[in-house]
């Protein structure tokens, strides 16, 4: 093990930061997740996601093509679950319908592009975001660029092995895990609301 | 300040020669009911191919 543990924190990380994988951050095994470059249990990560989403001023979900188009069985269900999650977390949604470098410009109000995701982040002052349904290659690119040039806190709900350049990364994020996350977010929100209610009393 | 195509709608007979000669997509839209085209000037590069193609002299390229 390396003595120096690289931390994947919100940026801006600089001109051309290295990919976290190049700095020794490894993707975890099944049942585990990453928080800021550290391997943790799935459950811990789910709670941390809930905390970050609820603590954010302007959280956004960025669903990608795999989730936007009803191309195979199971997508619609998962999409409903994500929508539910976003609503529960009080997050807005901006889609990433494709990956092309768009000409002549994107409209950062309504879309996000993996080649310059920072534009959408800057434009909308997004301080926390969730990637879901994006092919891993493009998600990794986007997460790295976001970390390089913005201070946005990134969360990846990956159906495959996860993403080191997200501050929190889940792997094998299927329907069950998403629903569990929604439950946690909902519970936490109620707790917070309760606490606020107590405070304001 | 920039050039783009302008339509004199009254001259348009809906032949769509402009539609077939424009190298750029969706600059011209065709309305079947009106039998007329419309122009999306923001997408036009002002080459003038449609002006040459138009049999009714309904199109011109000019600065806006």
């Amino acid at each position, binding site marked *: 093990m390396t003595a120096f543990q690289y931390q994947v924190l919100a940026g801006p990380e600089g001109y051309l930061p290295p*990919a976290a994988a190049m700095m020794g951050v490894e993707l975890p095994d099944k049942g585990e997740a990453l928080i800021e470059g550290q391997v943790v249990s799935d459950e811990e990560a789910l709670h941390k996601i809930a905390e970050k989403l609820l603590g954010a001023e302007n959280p956004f979900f960025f669903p990608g093509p795999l989730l936007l188009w009803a191309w195979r069985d199971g997508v619609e269900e998962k999409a409903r679950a994500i929508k539910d999650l976003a609503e529960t977390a009080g997050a807005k949604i901006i889609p990433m319908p494709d990956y092309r470098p768009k000409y002549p410009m994107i409209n950062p109000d309504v879309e996000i592009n993996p080649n310059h995701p920072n534009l959408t982040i800057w434009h909308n002052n997004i301080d926390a975001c969730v990637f879901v349904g994006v092919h891993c290659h493009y998600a990794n690119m986007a997460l790295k660029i976001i970390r390089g040039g913005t201070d946005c806190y990134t969360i990846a709900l990956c159906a495959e092995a996860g993403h080191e350049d997200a501050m929190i990364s889940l792997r094998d994020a299927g329907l069950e895990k998403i629903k569990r996350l929604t439950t946690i977010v909902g519970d936490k929100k109620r707790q917070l609301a309760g606490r606020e209610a107590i405070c304001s009393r | 300040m920039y050039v783009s195509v302008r339509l004199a709608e009254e001259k348009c007979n809906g032949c769509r020669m402009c539609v077939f000669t424009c190298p750029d997509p969706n600059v011209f839209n065709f309305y079947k009911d009106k039998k007329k085209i419309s122009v999306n000037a923001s997408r036009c590069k002002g080459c003038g191919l449609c002006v040459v193609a138009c049999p009714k002299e309904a199109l011109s390229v000019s600065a806006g």
Partner: protein
Amino acid sequence: MVVEQKAVSVDELLFASPRKQVFITGSEAVAEAVKRANVEMAIAYPITPQSESMHLVGDLFAKGYLRDYYRGENEFAVMAAVHGASLGGGRVFTATSGPGTLRAMEMFPVWAGSRQPIVCAFMCRGVSLPPSIQPENIEMGMLLDTGMIMLHAENAQDFFDMILKGYAVAEQPEVHLPLGVFVDGFFVTHTRDLVMLPPEDLKLAPYDPTCSPVPAFDMETPPIRIVRDPLLNKSNFISYAANASWHQEVLAAAERARKHLNRYLGGLLEVEYPDASLFIIASGTAVSQGREALKALRAEGFEVGLIKIKSIRPFPTAELIAATEKAELLVVPEFNAGGWLAREIKAAIDNNSRVCASPRVFGGMTMPVELIVSEVKKAMLAKGLLKSV
């Protein structure tokens, strides 16, 4: 005729099932691997010493193990066609050698950049000029920075295993990179050797294109509006940064392969006699020659160890630093004139004056065990570790 095959996991195929010993050439070992790899399509172009393996793959096609196979018009075209087939979302195989590798050079970074899990066997030989069909692995020195994963097989057994393991590593969604399995031509391809094979009625589970980090090209996977792989359209800082980030992702993918390589290969390198103060470090056939030298030297009472480097990309830098920490002398025998492995090792470890970048033979020459033995002794002498030879 074709054997009915059951699709199983790589673990079951390679680690759990009983193996049977056969006496075959390296080329035959390739065919045995491809037979069990559930490959859909292969494309071939003749070049010595690779041809034989692709003939045998052709035979597999004729028998029904593969679903398509043809001879392309040249290596560049073959590597492009394999790329197209891979874009289409299926598992592919091809092989080439020496000048063929160089002719197709432009395609390798393309494979890596577009994240295609193509497995290609490279039967290394000399490159022009002068032409030579004989073993030599200079081409590996030229491929180091293509972004491909590079494994160097010592013998036919390695060759067989590394091709199958290659698919298992290359197709991991977080890796999804091309993988080259390199062997030294003739020394492996044409040498008959004992190889342990798992049953032929088992094959790898099929490739699943829907797990790919990039969409398959079939108009069945969203997004439909996609260009592979784009010239980032705007010429501006943002596009350059996106391009750079794309490249970093390719490097990162190779890093992620380490974990899987460790698991399937049992480490990126292997050490014999880890306590030795003097190591022979090699890859490919030079390892086998090194093993013989090791025997001879240890018989004379020299405490020599051996480090076999299996993965050239990613390179086992940390493992090498650890393994050589206490070593006083490192002898690196190679089958090429450029000495790329010695350069890699020198760049990877500190106090690199410990590295003796020899012996080097090339042009098809064999590396006699005696040559390594005498180089080791010469190096010891120079270091003052030995009084006289």
